[in-house]
C-alpha cells in the first residue's frame, strides 16, 4: 500500500484497471454507492493486496453479467501469478466455469473433491442435496383464476409507467439487470417506496400503497429481499417472528395468546419443514434457508391475495431452495397471485408462468409460455440495456454540501461569529481582551476533553467517565503538587496523575472489549467508580495547588492563553492524523464497519485500546487546563464536562454511530457552547435562556447533519 497521501490516485488506478466505466471516484463515501458498485470496490480491494491465497465468498451475488466476466478475468490473472483462489458460491455454473477442482459441503461435511470438468451439473446437485432432485422446479400451471391485481401506469421513484395484470394462481417473475428499477418497483408495491403516478387495483378496488400497513390491508404482503435487515427479528424467537405479521389471529379476549402463537408456529414449522430445536429458539441462530422458510410462512399467514417476494432464495442452500419453489407453486395452486423478483434469470425461468423484464425503470418486455427461458430473459434484459442509465438522481446542492466534512465547521463558525457580533454590539465589554481571554481558557478546557470523546466516538465508543476523571486528576494533583513541594514530589504527582488517567482508560477498555459490556453501561459504572474514589480521597474540596505552576499554566501571549494555542495545535495535529496517517484511517474504518475492518486486517481490540487510552490522556490534559480555573482539589469540578463534551462533539459534526468526526469540529463545538454561555450572561438573559439556546442549537445542528447525510445516502 502506498503512503496515505497518495491513496486517492492509487485507488483510481486500481478501479480503472477493473473497468473504465465504474462511475466510482475515490473520494465517494461507500455508503452513497449502489450495491453493485460496493461489491466492485470490495473485490478491487481484495485483489489490490496481491494475496497468496484469495478467498471469495459469493462474490457475484450483486454483479451484472459483464462484471462477472471481469471478475473471472481478474481471478485468472491472480492464478496465473501463482496464487491460489478459493471460490465459494452456490451458483453451480459459475463454479464450473472458473474452478479447476471443486469441493462440495453438505450440512458441514465434505462430500469429496473432484476435477471441475469431470462433473455434470446434475452430479453436482446430487452431491449438494444428497439425493436426486428429479426436478428442481415444480411443474408450471396453465389454468389461472380471475384477475386479482391490475396496475395502471404505476410510476414512482426509480420506475415509471408500469401497467400489468395478474391472475389468481399465477406466478409472475420480475427480471432484468440489477438496479434497473425492478427493486424500486416491488418495494413500491409493498408500500416501502414512493408511488407518484398511476394506480393499483386489488380485487377491483383501488389499493393504497402509501405504507406496508395499507398495502397489507388491501391484501398485498411482501417478503423482503434483505432478510437480515428487513426480514427477521434476529434476537426474537421463532414464535415471535412468525406471529409478528398476523398478530390478530392470536388475539383472545383482547390479549395476545401465547399458546395460540406457539400452536400456529409449530404448525408452520411442520408444514414448511423448518429445522429448529423448537419454537422458542432465536431465529438468528438458524441457517439462512430455515430463516427464509419461517419468514415466508409468516408472510403467508397474513393470508394475502397478492404475495410479493424479493429474492426468494438469496443465501439459501440448494435443498431448501427446491422446497421454497415447491411451497410457492403450492400456494399459487391454492389461488394466491405471486410476484417474484430475482437477479437469477434461471430461477425466474424455472419458477414463473410469466415474466416481465425491466430496463432503466421501465417495463420493456413481457414473456409468457414457451418464451420463459433463461436465455429469453437475459436476452431481453441485455438487448434493451445496451446503454446504462447515466443520469443519477440528483441531490440538492445545499444538502450535498451539508453532508460534507467541512460544513459543520463553516456553519458553527458562522453561528459563533454572528452571535459574537450581536453581543458585542449590545455590550462593549464583550470584545475586550480580558473577556475573550477568559472565554478562550474555558474553550480550551472543554475542547481538550471533547477531543478525547471524539477519538472514542470515531471507533463507535463513548466515555461518560471523562467528567469524574477530570476531577480525579485534580484531586490527585492536590496531594502532590502543592505550594512548597519539592521537584521530586511534583514529578511523583505528575506520574500519579498519568497513572490514574491511564488506569481509568484501561479499565474502560477492559469492561468494553474483553468483558463486552455496552460502552454506555461500562463507562456509567466507571463514572460512578471514579467519582467515588475522588470523594473518598477528598470528601470536601481542599489542597491548594502550587501557585507557580498554576500561573505557568495560565501564561498568556497578549490576551491569548497559551493553553488555547496548545489546544488548537492538538486539534490540528489530530485532524492531520485522522486523514493523513494510517492510525486515523484505521480508526475511521473500525468505527464505520467493525466487521469489515477486522477482515481488512486491522486489530480491533488494540485500536480500541489506543482510543480509550488516548481519550483518558486528553482528559488528563483537560484536567490540567481546568486546574488553573479551580486551583484546588475539588472532586466535583469536572462533572459537567461529561455531557458538555458530548454536546461539543455532536455540534462539531461528529457522529455517535462512529466512523466520522472531526477534532477541529470539536474545537468549534466547544467554542460554540462557551459562546452561548457567555452571550446569555452579557445580554442579561436569565439562566433559562442559556438552556433554551444550548438545547435548541444542539437539535438544530444535529438535525441538519443527519438530514443531509440521509439525503445523500438515499440518492
Amino acid at each position, binding site marked *: 500500500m502506498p503512503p496515505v497521501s497518495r491513496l486517492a490516485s492509487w485507488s483510481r488506478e486500481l478501479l480503472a484497471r477493473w473497468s473504465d466505466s465504474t462511475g466510482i471516484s475515490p473520494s465517494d463515501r461507500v455508503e452513497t454507492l449502489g450495491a453493485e458498485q460496493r461489491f466492485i470496490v470490495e473485490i478491487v480491494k481484495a485483489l489490490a493486496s496481491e494475496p497468496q491465497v484469495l478467498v471469495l465468498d459469493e462474490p457475484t451475488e450483486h454483479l451484472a453479467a459483464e462484471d462477472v466476466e471481469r471478475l473471472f478475468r481478474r481471478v485468472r490473472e491472480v492464478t496465473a501469478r501463482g496464487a491460489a483462489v478459493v471460490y465459494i458460491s452456490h451458483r453451480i455454473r459459475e463454479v464450473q466455469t472458473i474452478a479447476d477442482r471443486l469441493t462440495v459441503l453438505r450440512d458441514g461435511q465434505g462430500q469429496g473433491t473432484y476435477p471441475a470438468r469431470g462433473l455434470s451439473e446434475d452430479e453436482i446437485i446430487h452431491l449438494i442435496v444428497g439425493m436426486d432432485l428429479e426436478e428442481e422446479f415444480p411443474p408450471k400451471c396453465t389454468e389461472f383464476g380471475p384477475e386479482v391485481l391490475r396496475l395502471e401506469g404505476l410510476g414512482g421513484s426509480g420506475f415509471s409507467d408500469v401497467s400489468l395484470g395478474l391472475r389468481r394462481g399465477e406466478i409472475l417473475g420480475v427480471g432484468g439487470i440489477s438496479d434497473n428499477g425492478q427493486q424500486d418497483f416491488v418495494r413500491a408495491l409493498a408500500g*416501502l417506496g414512493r408511488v407518484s403516478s398511476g394506480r393499483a387495483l386489488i380485487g377491483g378496488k383501488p389499493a393504497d400503497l402509501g405504507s406496508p400497513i395499507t398495502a397489507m390491508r388491501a391484501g398485498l404482503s411482501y417478503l423482503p429481499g434483505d432478510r437480515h435487515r428487513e*426480514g*427477521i427479528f434476529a434476537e426474537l424467537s421463532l414464535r415471535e417472528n412468525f*406471529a409478528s405479521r398476523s398478530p390478530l389471529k392470536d388475539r383472545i379476549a383482547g390479549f395476545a395468546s401465547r399458546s395460540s402463537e406457539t400452536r400456529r408456529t409449530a404448525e408452520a414449522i*411442520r408444514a414448511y*419443514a423448518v429445522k429448529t430445536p423448537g419454537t422458542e429458539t432465536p431465529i438468528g441462530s438458524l441457517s439462512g434457508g430455515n430463516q427464509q422458510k419461517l419468514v415466508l410462512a409468516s408472510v403467508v399467514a397474513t393470508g394475502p391475495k397478492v404475495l410479493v417476494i424479493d429474492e426468494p432464495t438469496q443465501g439459501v442452500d440448494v435443498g431448501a431452495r427446491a422446497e421454497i419453489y415447491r411451497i410457492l407453486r403450492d400456494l399459487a395452486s391454492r389461488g394466491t397471485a405471486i410476484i417474484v423478483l430475482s437477479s437469477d434469470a434461471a430461477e425466474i425461468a424455472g419458477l414463473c408462468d410469466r415474466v416481465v423484464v425491466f430496463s432503466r425503470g421501465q417495463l420493456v418486455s413481457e414473456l409468457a409460455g414457451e418464451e420463459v427461458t433463461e436465455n429469453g430473459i437475459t436476452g431481453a434484459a441485455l438487448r434493451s440495456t445496451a446503454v446504462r442509465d447515466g443520469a443519477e438522481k440528483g441531490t440538492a446542492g445545499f444538502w450535498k454540501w451539508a453532508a460534507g466534512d467541512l460544513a459543520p465547521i463553516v456553519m458553527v463558525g458562522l453561528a459563533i461569529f454572528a452571535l459574537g457580533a450581536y453581543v458585542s454590539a449590545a455590550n462593549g465589554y464583550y470584545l475586550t481582551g480580558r473577556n475573550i481571554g477568559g472565554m478562550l481558557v474555558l474553550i480550551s478546557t472543554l475542547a481538550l476533553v471533547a477531543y478525547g470523546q471524539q477519538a472514542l466516538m470515531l471507533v463507535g465508543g463513548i466515555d461518560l467517565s471523562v467528567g469524574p476523571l477530570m476531577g480525579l486528576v485534580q484531586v490527585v494533583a492536590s496531594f502532590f503538587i502543592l505550594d512548597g513541594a519539592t521537584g521530586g514530589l511534583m514529578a511523583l504527582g505528575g506520574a500519579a496523575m498519568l497513572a490514574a488517567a491511564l488506569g481509568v482508560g484501561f479499565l474502560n477498555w477492559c469492561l468494553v472489549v474483553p468483558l463486552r459490556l455496552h460502552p454506555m453501561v461500562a463507562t456509567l459504572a466507571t463514572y460512578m467508580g471514579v467519582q467515588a474514589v475522588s470523594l473518598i480521597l477528598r470528601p470536601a474540596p481542599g489542597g491548594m495547588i502550587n501557585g507557580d505552576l498554576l500561573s505557568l499554566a495560565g501564561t498568556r501571549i497578549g490576551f491569548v492563553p497559551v493553553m488555547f494555542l496548545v489546544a488548537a495545535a492538538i486539534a490540528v495535529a489530530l485532524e492531520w492524523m485522522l486523514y493523513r496517517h494510517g492510525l486515523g484511517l484505521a480508526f475511521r474504518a473500525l468505527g464505520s464497519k467493525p466487521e469489515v475492518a477486522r477482515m481488512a486486517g486491522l486489530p480491533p481490540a488494540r485500536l480500541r485500546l489506543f482510543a480509550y487510552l488516548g481519550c483518558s490522556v486528553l482528559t488528563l490534559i483537560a484536567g490540567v487546563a481546568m486546574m488553573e480555573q479551580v486551583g484546588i482539589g475539588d472532586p466535583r469540578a469536572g462533572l459537567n464536562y461529561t455531557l458538555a463534551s458530548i454536546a461539543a462533539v455532536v455540534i462539531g459534526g461528529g457522529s455517535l454511530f462512529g466512523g466520522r468526526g472531526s477534532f477541529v469540529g470539536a474545537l468549534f463545538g466547544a467554542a460554540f457552547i462557551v459562546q452561548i454561555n457567555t452571550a446569555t450572561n452579557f445580554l442579561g438573559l436569565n439562566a*433559562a435562556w442559556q438552556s*433554551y439556546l444550548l438545547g435548541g442549537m*444542539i437539535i438544530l445542528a444535529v*438535525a441538519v447533519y443527519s438530514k443531509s447525510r440521509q439525503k445523500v445516502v438515499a440518492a
Partner: protein
Amino acid sequence: MKAQTFAAAAPQSPVFRLRLPGEFGWIWIATAALFAISAIVAPGTVRPASLSAMLPFAAMLAIVAAGQTIVIQQRGLDLSCAAMMSLGGVVVAKLGFAADSMLLAVAGTVAVAALCGSLNGLLVARLNIMPIVATLAMNAVLLGAVNMLSRGTPLAVPDALESFSHRDVLGVPWTLVLSLGFLLSIAVISARTLIGRRFVAVGANPRAARAAGMPVLAYQVGTYGAAAVCFAVAGMLYAGFIGSASQNAGTDFLLPGIAAVVVGGTPFSGGRGSVIASGVAAVFMTQLGILVMALGAGSAVQLLIQALVIIAATAVRELPGILRRKA
C-alpha cells in the same frame, strides 16, 4: 428431510443440566440474598419502620426505571429524565395552586410530560438524531422551562399532593402501591397484548417491523411519551414527598434509574426487556445503599459499590457467552 424437523429438538441430557436463571431471573435471587444478608449483618435495616422509610424511594426509582426501560428497549436512552422529573414537580405545584384541583393539576402535568416526551420521540425517530443527543438537548430546554417557571427557587406544593405522597394503605405506602400498579400494567401490556408484541418487534428491528406492516413511528414516539409520563409521575410523587418542587429534583434519579435498568438485566441491544426486573432492581439498589450506610460507610463508598454492582450484574449475564466462545 421432514423427519429431521423436530428430531433435532431433543437436548442431549435434559435431566442433569444445570439450569441457570434467565437474564431477568438473577435480580430476584440477588434481591432475596441482599435482604437475607441485611437481616444478618444489619437487622435494623429490615425492621418495618426502616422498610417503610426505604420503600417510597425505591418505588419512585422503580417508576423512573420503568420509563427508562421501555426507552432502552427501543434502543434509546432518555437523558431528559432529570429535567422531566423536575418539570413534573414544578408544573403540578403551579397548576395545583392555579386550578385548585389536584386531579386537574395531575392530568395537566401528565399531558405536558407526554407532549415533551413525544417531542423527544419525534427528534429521534423522525429527524434521526441519536437518542442521547436528542434527549440531552431536550433536557437543557426543559431545565430552562423549569427555571423560568420556578424562578430558580424551590416551590411549595399543595397540601393535597403532600398528604397523598405520605398516605398508606394498610401500612403499605401509597407510592409503593402506585408504582406496583404502574409496573404491572406496563408489564401486562408488553407481555400480553398486541401493542406489547409490536413494541418488542419495533425495538428489536425497526426496519423489519416496518416491512411487516407495523406503525413504527407511532411506537417510537409513543415510547418516549410514555417514558416521560413515568418520569413526571415520579417527579410529582417526589415533590409531594419532600414537600417542595425544585429545579434539581431529578438529578439524583437519572443515573440510579439507568443503573437499575442495567442491573435488572434489560440489554441495550433493543427489543427484549423487563420493567418488573428493573423495578426489583430499584428496590435492590435502594436497599443496598441503606445497608452500606448502616454499616457505617459514606456516600462515596456507596457510589463505589453501585459501580461494582453494575459491572457484576452485566458481567454475570455475559460470562456464559464469553466462556462458551473461549471453549
